[in-house]
């Protein structure tokens, strides 16, 4: 365990009724790390991600974030989510609010900023993701890629110490994926700590410090990208990567 350890997930298990969806999942991240969760659909990677900000409840195990137990029943979940940003596969932008409105809502209502200050912060975040021209557009008026960038700006506006990305490009047309990955690249360069669920293997290879391969709710294998992608130790990892590669 390094001095910089920031997130420690230990033996996390979760059931939906009888069905075990996570089984003793463990991994660690240092501050500034990028960890990418990969695996076939239904492998539990999104559920694992959602356990970190308690949108899903793990029944067993421990998740230590910056030394605090996330799974503690006494934890203030709103406080936790203030510090952990999340980007959704389906964007989930507030449909009735403009781009600025979407990004400003958290700063205004959660952080208690004045309307002007919240708007200024929202505009700055939208500039950061390259949407300086779309301040007053509604979600339905934006392309999927633009919507997802608003989603990222909305999470960033809370100045999170960890960002969770739940398949941020899976709902996008192929030609719109690049602009979202570019924004994510920028965050990596700025040193943001990121936990990412994605099928974008080349992105994972480029930015990840560690890849965690999940199958059937278990960690099958984990390691740095070059090791996991080029010399997988487990047969299941190899088979999964081959299947993914054949679709690229």
């Amino acid at each position, binding site marked *: 365990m390094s001095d910089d350890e920031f997130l420690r997930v230990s033996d996390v298990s979760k059931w939906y009724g009888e069905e075990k969806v996570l089984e003793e999942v463990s991994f660690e991240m240092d501050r500034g790390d990028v960890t990418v969760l990969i695996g076939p659909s239904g492998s539990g990677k999104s559920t694992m991600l959602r356990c970190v900000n308690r949108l899903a409840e793990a029944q067993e195990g421990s998740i230590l974030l910056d030394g605090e137990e996330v799974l503690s029943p006494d934890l203030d979940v709103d*406080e936790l*989510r203030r510090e952990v940003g999340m980007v959704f596969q389906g964007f989930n932008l507030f449909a009735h609010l403009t781009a600025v409105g979407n990004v400003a809502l958290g700063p205004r209502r959660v952080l208690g900023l004045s309307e002007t200050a919240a708007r200024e912060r929202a505009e700055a975040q939208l500039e950061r993701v390259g949407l300086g021209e779309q301040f007053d557009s509604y979600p339905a*008026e*934006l392309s999927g890629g633009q919507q997802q960038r608003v989603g990222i700006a*909305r999470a960033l506006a809370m100045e999170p110490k960890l960002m969770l990305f739940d398949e941020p490009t899976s709902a996008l047309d192929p030609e719109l994926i690049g602009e979202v990955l570019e924004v994510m690249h920028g965050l990596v360069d700025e040193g943001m700590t990121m936990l990412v669920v994605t099928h974008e293997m080349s992105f994972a290879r480029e930015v990840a410090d560690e890849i965690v391969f999940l199958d059937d709710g278990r960690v099958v294998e984990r390691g740095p990208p070059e090791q996991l992608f080029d010399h997988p130790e487990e047969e299941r990892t190899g088979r999964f990567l081959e299947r993914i590669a054949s679709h690229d």
Partner: protein
Amino acid sequence: MSDPATLALAAAASAAVELPACGGLPISAGDGLATLAPVGQSADWSFVGEAVDWEFVFRNADYLGVGALLTIGLTVASILLGFVVGFPAGAVEVYGDGYLKRAVSTVGIVLRGTPIVVILIVMYFVVGVPQINLGVATISSAMTAGILGLGLRSAAYQSQIFRATLSSVDEGQLEAGRSIGLSRFEAVRYVVVPQALRRSIPGFQNEFTIVLKDTSIVFAIGLAELLTRGYDLFSEQTTAVLEVVLFISAIYFVLTFTTNRALDYLGDYYAIPEGESA
């Protein structure tokens, strides 16, 4: 005045004047039928009534006007009470749990399942609501009972409008709200409710129209609103049934049309812009 429709209406009216609700008017069924005796004369405009009867209507327009004001007052008060009670009730049905949710949903079922006349009679004669002194004016106990009865029943219906629209907002909206640190209440308040209210406008237009027309039922507890006053009038001049009914219908139409258009406008004003790339 002699086409079959007029005749039927007048006959129905003159038969009805014997009902206790219209008691006190010095008209018998015989009078009504007698005035209808000469049949066969066919004027081109007979389907909109006779000049002499229209004159009668206009002479009594202020009498109907007072009824219209009462109708408007009852409608506005009932719709407001219905909203103030019905919206939280709908929210409890969507987001609440346990006893509260069950209690709210049971009261709603009972109110929706009870004829409005029964609700009004219970309010007025059984509960015996008091008159309310507002300083500038006093609301009679019949009026109070009317507002409570119509308002609570409207609340029961409005709760279902809001229940439907609140649950129609995608789950991901609430989740995204929670993900930036809003509490459940705040996420509902700032994210779900604004979208649900927009979607409630068409259902609300229906409910408004229904309440407006249902206000006439307060005759059961002795309140003379628009329709009851119309009834009184054509009981007095039984040849004027068509004219009175047309005149009253026109008032109802103007009221429903203008409010519906106002709500349309509200809906358009707050509509969420749709793009081409959605």
